[in-house]
């Protein structure tokens, strides 16, 4: 009850202040009048009675003040008073306020925007029950044959052994991707299908919105004609029909029963590109033959750790099992390990370093903004020294002055934070737009409660940081000194100027560090653009001819179809060359396969060298301008029944036949062992997966016309990518080509139309984005630093007008005066640069992972950044210096 009492009285003290004051006024008035009344009754005249009553009462104002303090809300009162006072001073100096708020808003906005990305991508739990218990399992391939590849898909037999032999997991599920075309219900449409072994939904603890998930046994062959729909597909394609469960739909010309619909938030696997989200799930039904496959690695595996089991424990268990399997099946498994990666790391491992670097960068920007504001406040405070001194003289305590100075910067920071949120809002939109296809969970990036709390937190921190130096300066006010100087300008404040110089030096140092970081990234991106991808991207348009699984049952049918497509397209006007490949360069797809070279001792499969294998059609080399270095390309004579022909990349030729010509050499593909194949040509190396890959990929191309069923499996038809070199703008050709393909077989969808230029640009988009953001932050930092230097120089010039006048009057040349001013600014910049370079040398190692073709200590970048900074600083101090130069000695001397 007493607490309630107190809170109520605080409440009244703060929010009903005028009411309380009025009451108090009335109460004291009553007191005085009651006393006067008494005196009147004892015979004193009324006017005299009132006077005496007041005298007896004593200091009325003091009493009121004490009464208010007695309410216990004085600190709040003080704070409110400081804030009101702060608001008033801010209003009175709109230029200063705008500058300070803007600086803080930019710093806080940048932090908020980057933090909201970090929050959504790195911090927010994945959208599953107990997501930290979920791990992704991968093979670790032998490094001798898979150099530089740390994670590899899993083979069915190994997966089944892992599942039956491990104790660490509650469940384990393998899954693969495919596309299925829905017909018989409006326009045919192709959907992204995930085929999963039965435990997947229970491992994720995911419950369908309607119906059920797959139960045990539904991944047996013959039972797999069932499908679970995503919420989006259900709503869009089936109009949200609540009776959908149990209905049949036609996928790839076969009947599937819909057994469930997932909720709107369910997503698995989480895709980096929201436009590639899974749309349907079906059971992954392996035949006995499939289940025995140990050498073909095509599946991803997700698993849930048992409660209380750490990833490390599971890893130990997997290591043991891998060793056993390697001994048991040396021919397939020798050297093959396994790794358990927490699901989140698996998802965001690639982007984490870049995000953390950006977060570091925005913290630096905010520090610079704080230094800047501190500087502005310090300069402004000098004009208020007199006021401060008077307050000290009248008995204001140090603490009170400190508190007041802090209240002002806090107010600035809060205003900056509010404006910063607006900046961040647009920043986030921009980031999502740029990164949507490269950042996992980018659709979840938003300014949520956590982000708002973060913004509030850093705004307060920034307010304190910016206010600390000015506050202590204010508290140190020397009354005598300040008052002695009279109403005029302060002529000496050596301590204050040292603080300001220090702030400027740190601004320069911090912004140089950012500039160097941005410079290194710009150089990297430039180097990446200089990289020859091995083909000529201009004028090439590509599209995926998405032949559904099960469309053709024999290789000959698929070969025949693609021949008709190529024949049709080559007759189109404007088409210079056209060819097919199963996986385009710079896409994430590809296939590594073991090969056996004729004449070399036969080894077990696990010891066979691995090369990237691509299927191509005649015309592919011509369409891509892939240089033929030796021999011939594949042509229309390389068909089934003719001797097998392959092309190999230059790096593969050097790797396998370092001292002789590779032409005419024979080799066998492990997965297509029907005949040995002859090397007929050597082509240039191509960047297969990414522009920034440093290892040349030994690559083998073989003609799609000599395709057979792979070892130990039935033939399954698959889609290929068409590359068309056009005379006209490639994008304009795309629809014509698409229509032509459609004419050949309307049941086969054409999708993913992109030019090769777009593919290169997309492949570089993460680097470009990091570079753009870091560049923007560095620019921001530079701007803030320049403002800092400018304000300090301007101030010192205006302070020394008198001195300049004397110098000129005594015969100093105007250039001397100019130099005097510039020298100071440049001195600060020089010291800042030295510190900044030292800091950059220490820190640039952090961004090594983001660099390409540039050392983190690249001298050219360091020198260029430092020189650029110096030039800008020179400009910033030149403007006020010119003002100093123009000083009229007469005016200057009269000034004081």
């Amino acid at each position: 009850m007493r607490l309630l009492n107190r809170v109520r009285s605080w409440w009244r003290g703060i929010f009903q202040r005028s009411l309380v004051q009025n009451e108090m006024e009335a109460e004291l008035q009553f007191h005085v009048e009651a006393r006067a009344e008494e005196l009147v009754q004892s015979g004193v005249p009324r006017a005299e009675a009132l006077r005496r009553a007041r005298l007896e009462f004593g200091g009325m104002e003091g009493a009121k003040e004490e009464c208010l303090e007695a309410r216990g809300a004085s600190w709040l009162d003080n704070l409110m008073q400081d804030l009101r006072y702060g608001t008033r001073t801010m209003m009175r100096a709109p230029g200063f306020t705008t500058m300070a708020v803007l600086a803080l808003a930019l710093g806080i906005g940048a932090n908020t925007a980057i933090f909201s990305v970090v929050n959504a991508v790195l911090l927010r739990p994945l959208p599953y029950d107990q997501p930290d218990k979920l791990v992704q399992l991968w093979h670790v391939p032998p490094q001798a044959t898979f150099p530089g590849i740390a994670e590899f898909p899993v083979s069915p037999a190994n997966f089944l052994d892992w599942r039956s032999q491990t104790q660490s997991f509650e469940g384990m599920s393998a899954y693969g991707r495919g596309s299925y075309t829905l017909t018989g219900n409006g326009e045919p449409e192709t959907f992204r299908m995930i085929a999963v072994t039965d435990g997947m939904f229970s491992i994720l603890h995911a419950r369908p919105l309607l119906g059920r998930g797959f139960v045990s046994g539904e991944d047996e062959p013959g039972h797999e004609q069932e499908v679970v729909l995503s919420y989006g597909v259900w709503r869009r394609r089936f109009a949200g029909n609540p009776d959908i469960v149990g209905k049949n739909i036609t996928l790839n010309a076969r009947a599937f029963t819909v057994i469930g619909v997932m909720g709107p938030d369910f997503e698995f696997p989480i895709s980096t590109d929201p436009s590639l989200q899974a749309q349907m799930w079906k059971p992954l039904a392996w035949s006995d033959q499939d289940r025995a496959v140990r050498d073909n690695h095509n599946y991803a595996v997700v698993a849930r750790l048992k409660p209380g089991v750490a990833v490390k424990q599971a890893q130990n268990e997997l290591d043991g099992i891998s060793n056993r399997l390697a001994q048991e099946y040396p021919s397939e498994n020798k050297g093959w390990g396994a790794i358990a990666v927490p699901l989140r790391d698996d998802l965001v491992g690639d982007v984490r370093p870049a995000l953390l670097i950006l977060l570091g960068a925005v913290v630096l920007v905010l520090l610079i903004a704080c230094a800047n504001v501190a500087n502005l406040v310090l300069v402004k405070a000098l004009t208020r020294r007199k006021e401060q001194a008077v307050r000290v003289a009248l008995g204001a305590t140090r603490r009170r002055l400190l508190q007041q100075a802090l209240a002002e910067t806090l107010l600035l920071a809060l205003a900056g934070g509010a404006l910063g949120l607006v900046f961040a809002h647009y920043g986030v939109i921009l980031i999502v737009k740029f990164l949507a296809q490269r950042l996992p969970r980018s659709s979840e990036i938003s300014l949520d409660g956590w982000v708002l709390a973060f913004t509030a937190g850093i705004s307060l921190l920034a307010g304190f940081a910016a206010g600390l130096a000015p506050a202590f300066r204010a508290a140190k006010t020397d009354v005598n000194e300040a008052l002695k100087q009279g109403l005029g300008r302060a002529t000496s404040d050596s301590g204050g100027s040292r603080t300001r110089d220090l702030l400027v030096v740190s601004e320069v140092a911090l912004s140089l560090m950012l500039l160097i970081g941005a410079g290194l990234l710009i150089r990297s991106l430039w180097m990446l653009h200089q990289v020859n991808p091995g083909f000529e991207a201009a004028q090439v348009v590509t599209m995926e001819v998405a032949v559904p699984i099960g469309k053709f049952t024999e290789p000959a049918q698929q070969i025949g179809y693609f021949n008709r497509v190529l024949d049709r397209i080559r007759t189109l006007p404007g088409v210079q060359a056209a060819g097919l490949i199963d996986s385009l360069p710079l896409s994430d797809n590809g296939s590594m396969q073991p090969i056996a070279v004729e004449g070399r001792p036969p080894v077990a499969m696990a010891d066979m060298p691995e090369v990237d294998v691509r299927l191509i059609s005649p015309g592919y080399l011509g369409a891509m301008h892939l240089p033929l270095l030796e021999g011939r390309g594949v042509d229309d004579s390389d068909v089934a029944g003719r001797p097998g022909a392959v092309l190999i990349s230059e790096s593969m030729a050097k790797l396998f036949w370092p001292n002789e010509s590779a032409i005419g050499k024979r080799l066998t593909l492990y997965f297509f062992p029907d005949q040995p194949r002859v090397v007929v040509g050597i082509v240039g190396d191509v960047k297969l997966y990414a522009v920034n890959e440093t290892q040349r990929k030994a690559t083998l191309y073989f003609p799609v016309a000599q395709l057979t069923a792979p070892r130990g499996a039935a033939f399954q038809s698959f889609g290929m990518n068409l590359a068309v070199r056009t005379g006209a703008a490639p994008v304009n050709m795309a629809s014509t080509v698409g229509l032509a393909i459609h004419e050949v077989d309307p049941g086969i969808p054409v999708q993913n139309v992109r030019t090769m230029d777009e593919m290169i640009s997309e492949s570089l988009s993460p680097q470009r984005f990091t570079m753009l953001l870091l560049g923007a932050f560095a620019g921001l930092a530079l701007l803030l630093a320049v403002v800092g230097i400018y304000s300090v120089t301007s101030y010192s010039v205006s302070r020394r007008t008198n001195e300049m006048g004397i110098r000129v009057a005594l015969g100093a040349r105007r250039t001397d005066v100019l130099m005097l001013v510039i020298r100071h600014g440049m001195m600060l910049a020089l010291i800042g640069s030295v510190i900044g370079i030292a800091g950059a040398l220490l820190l640039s190692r952090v961004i090594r992972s983001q660099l390409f073709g540039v050392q983190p200590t690249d001298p050219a970048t360091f020198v260029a950044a430092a020189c650029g900074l110096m030039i800008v600083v020179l400009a910033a101090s030149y403007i006020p210096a010119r003002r100093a130069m123009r000083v009229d000695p007469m005016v200057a001397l009269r000034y004081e």
Partner: protein
Amino acid sequence: MSKQMDLLQGTLDMLILKATSLGPLHGYGILLRIGQISKDRLEIQQGSLYPALYRLEHQGWITSEWGESENKRRAKYYRLTAAGKRRLQAETEKWNRMTDVIAGILETRPEEV
């Protein structure tokens, strides 16, 4: 003119509680009541009365409400709360113990030490 004593530090609160324990009073009334009980032997600074009242109210020992004075004017009346009653009792006991001890010490004669 009788001799007036200055108020001991901290005793004003006690006197106010005592005065209000005899019935609701306005500020000036409290002053008169204390004067009356002490037979004008205590001088209370009028200016310090009100901060004390506000403090006591803030602590919850007394509450206030507006009412009408004996000469038909609006005045703020203070009333002792239940908590205030307990407080007065505790303070009174403490005061009595204290005066006993102090008096005992002061009355001690040299030969008794």
